């Protein structure tokens, strides 16, 4: 498989060298207008660039260098005399080529903009590596820089410990200064390695275009979030996997125009690349509106390859079936095309992504398309954060979750009030649930409630106030992952190193909201704080929200996916096209009704409207998963239970992950991914027309 990018890079470097040679020899010719050696060298240089540019179909460069060759032959033949005009023309030609090379370097194509203004040859003395005020640096140099800065930080730490004891003010001041400089250096070096996603994605339009030509398909590529930055090494690692996924989508995903027309789809297929950063993870979604994954074909192929037995295959749920495409050697494409290759399949994509600690999964709607989701935990993301102090320790709160801050003074009118045993604060007329950070972190009930700082945070659609001891300042922090012992603590999303070299934990705001029970229990009160975590539970348990589904069956959803329980009068629900929404805190929340979602076994299905007619209040569970929220309308909320997750039998209906026993009764566990997909996963809230 050719690596276009490397060839182009070589071409660029070589061409710049040749152009410099041309400049150099032109100078010689100015002194010695008939020097055969210089004439030959200049001709050779133009000729080489022309040849390689033809290979890449850079027609404009080819034409210019051809013109250059032409002038040189005439000079050699004596049909033209070398003078100022000829020199000017050749220099101008060379500069135009440079301009086009710049365009190739930036976008992979020559572009249609007129080439840049002609500079004199002497002005372009900068090395070939300088482009637009940026500098190319070898990654090895950066690695060394990083390692050495790391050592500097260690030495700085040791110094700071001693410097504090020093009587000598000069030493203390110098140490302090060194401290700041090294911290800043550390941050800058980390930043240097960050590159925007676009540096990876800008080769894709060309790739898609070439694929379309080869495969006789028409695909439009949309890209969103190209300015998200990732460490260079992570970008390198996902380059091939993403390219493979793009190839895969065009090759196997999007149908040929005839098939699309027959299916009533627009002739031009759509491939959408979307990147966003959430909670210390970079999400990259590649969605297509192609044929989607054919579940039956996948199961059949898996059985014939011996990946699963026929019996097991029958019991596989949708998501599990799709996951099969990532197993080694798997390919259901009836013809192995030269584009996607044989066996260099999705298993390699998965392995490469997992190597950097990421994950990949796929979701599909047959006939409509598929979405591949890549998640990469960030080791080197820089986010602005607010530093706060609680119980003598510093914590960082990502600024994107921060709404505002309130300072309460003792004896002032504003104070924390209590609704039964739930603390609240009146913020501009609305009651803001209050969480005491110390309490959420395991300290006892709060002592101080009148001289406090409240940091108002957003968690999904809700907001709450976090009480801390002190607010420090806002800083740009580098998000680092926590190790495997700490990864699963819901209230922390990572750690960072502060200016003084100490590690500090980064709070996960949704996790905090969850743990501190901004979710209401059945009676509408804030549930009492969770008892101390049991050490080493014998069997892993999970907390579920139980509710009644259609047929009065019992259904469950993990409580971690639930944000709130709400009640609405039936009139609050409105239809927008074929979807149902409800006005929820000023936004439209997509609503799914259990009755319509889960195919009923009755022969005469009741209509959704009939089910709710006559009820005064409709119960809705607001679910949030991976940043998207929907409202799930259910018959009746039953209970919140903590049960061991065991013996999950594969579910037999759509949107059901499986059935299990909860408190001795058969309960269906909902597949939140499937639910979200029904609500069109690519939007936070529904908007008319695709994004």
């Amino acid at each position, binding site marked *: 498989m050719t690596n276009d990018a490397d060839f182009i890079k070589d071409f660029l470097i070589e061409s710049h060298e040749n152009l410099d040679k041309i400049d150099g020899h032109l100078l010689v010719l100015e002194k010695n207008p008939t020097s055969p050696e210089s004439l030959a060298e200049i001709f050779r240089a133009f000729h080489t660039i022309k040849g390689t540019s033809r290979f890449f179909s850079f027609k404009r460069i080819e034409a210019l260098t051809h013109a250059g060759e032409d002038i040189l032959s005439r000079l050699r033949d004596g049909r033209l005399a070398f003078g100022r005009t000829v020199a000017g023309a050749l220099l101008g030609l060379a500069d135009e080529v440079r301009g086009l090379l710049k365009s190739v370097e930036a976008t992979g194509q020559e572009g249609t903009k007129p080439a840049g203004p002609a500079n004199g040859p002497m002005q372009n003395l900068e090395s070939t590596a300088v482009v637009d005020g940026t500098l190319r640096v070898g990654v090895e140099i950066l690695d060394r820089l990083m390692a050495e800065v790391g050592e500097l930080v260690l030495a700085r730490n040791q110094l700071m410990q001693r410097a504090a004891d020093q009587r000598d003010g000069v030493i203390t001041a110098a140490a302090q200064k060194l401290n700041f400089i090294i911290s800043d250096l550390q941050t800058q070096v980390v930043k240097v390695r960050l590159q925007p996603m676009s540096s990876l994605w800008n080769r894709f339009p060309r790739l898609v275009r070439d694929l379309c030509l080869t495969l006789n398909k028409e695909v439009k590529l949309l890209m969103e979030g190209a300015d998200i930055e990732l460490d260079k090494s992570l970008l390198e690692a996902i380059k091939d996997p993403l390219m493979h996924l793009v190839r895969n989508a065009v090759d196997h995903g999007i149908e040929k125009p005839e098939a699309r027309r027959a299916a009533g789809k627009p002739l031009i297929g759509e491939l959408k690349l979307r990147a966003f950063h959430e909670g210390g993870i970079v999400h990259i979604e590649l969605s297509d509106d192609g044929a989607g994954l054919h579940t039956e074909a996948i199961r059949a192929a898996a059985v014939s390859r011996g990946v699963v037995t026929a019996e097991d295959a029958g019991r596989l749920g949708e998501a599990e079936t799709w996951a099969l495409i990532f197993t080694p050697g798997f390919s259901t494409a009836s013809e192995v095309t030269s584009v996607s290759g044989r066996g260099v399949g999705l298993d390699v994509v998965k392995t490469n992504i997992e190597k950097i600690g990421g994950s990949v999964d796929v979701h599909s709607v047959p006939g409509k398309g598929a979405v591949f989701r890549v998640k990469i935990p960030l080791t080197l993301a820089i986010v602005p954060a607010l530093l706060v102090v609680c119980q003598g320790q510093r914590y960082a709160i990502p600024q994107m979750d921060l709404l505002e801050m309130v300072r309460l003074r003792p004896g002032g009118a504003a104070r924390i009030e209590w609704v039964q045993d739930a603390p609240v604060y009146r913020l501009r007329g609305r009651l803001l649930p209050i969480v005491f950070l110390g309490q959420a972190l395991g300290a006892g009930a709060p002592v101080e409630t009148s001289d406090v700082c409240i940091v108002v945070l957003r968690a999904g659609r809700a907001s709450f106030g976090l009480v801390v001891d002190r607010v420090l300042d806002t800083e740009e922090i580098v998000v680092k992952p926590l190790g495997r012992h700490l990864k699963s603590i819901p209230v922390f999303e990572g750690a960072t190193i502060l200016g003084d070299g100490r*590690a500090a934990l980064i709070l996960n705001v949704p996790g905090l909201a969850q743990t501190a029970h901004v979710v209401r229990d059945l009676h509408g009160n804030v549930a009492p704080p969770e008892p101390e975590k049991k050490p080493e539970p014998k069997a892993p348990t999970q907390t579920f929200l139980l509710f009644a589904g259609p047929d009065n069956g019992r259904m469950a959803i993990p409580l971690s996916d639930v944000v709130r329980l709400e009640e609405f009068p039936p009139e609050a629900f409105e239809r927008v096209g074929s979807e149902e929404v409800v006005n929820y805190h000023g936004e439209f929340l997509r609503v799914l009704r259990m009755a319509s979602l889960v195919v009923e076994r009755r022969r005469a299905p009741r209509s959704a409207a009939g089910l709710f007619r006559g009820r005064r209040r409709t119960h809705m569970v607001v679910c949030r998963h991976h940043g998207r929220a929907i409202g799930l309308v259910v018959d009746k909320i039953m209970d919140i239970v903590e049960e061991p997750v065991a013996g999950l039998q594969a579910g037999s209906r759509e949107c059901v992950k499986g059935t299990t026993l909860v408190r001795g009764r058969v309960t269906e566990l909902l597949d939140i991914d499937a639910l979200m997909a029904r609500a069109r996963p690519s939007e936070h809230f529904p908007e008319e027309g695709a994004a």
Partner: protein
Amino acid sequence: MSAPLCSFYLDESLYGIPVGLVQEVLRGQVLTPVPLAGRGVQGILNLRGRIITVLDLRARLELPARPPDAPSMHILLDHGQETVGLIVDRIGDVIEVEEAEFEPLPKTLEGAPRELLRGAYKLSDRLLLALDVEKSIAAA
């Protein structure tokens, strides 16, 4: 047959782990405590820009909790993709142990230490308890 073990003290008992697993030994580190992490986690520290989890084996070995302000050293272990730290009281010497001197655990020993210790080596003046590193630093 002998294998070198890195030895350390926890509450006056001497433990040993294969030297090959030890990446580094640190002194005088400031740890950031991690609330809600459970007793086995002493905290996190900054190692040249990386966040390292430091474990306290006392909980897992059912030893009394570490007194605050007790002197400590940290042993950094290579654990697959991750570096994990152990907080210990004192570092001992690297000891070449003889397999001939190895004894499995006495049947009278019950509880968690049974799971985490492979056995003991009889040194000339005392016992060295051989730690099963995998089990000791496994995440819960």
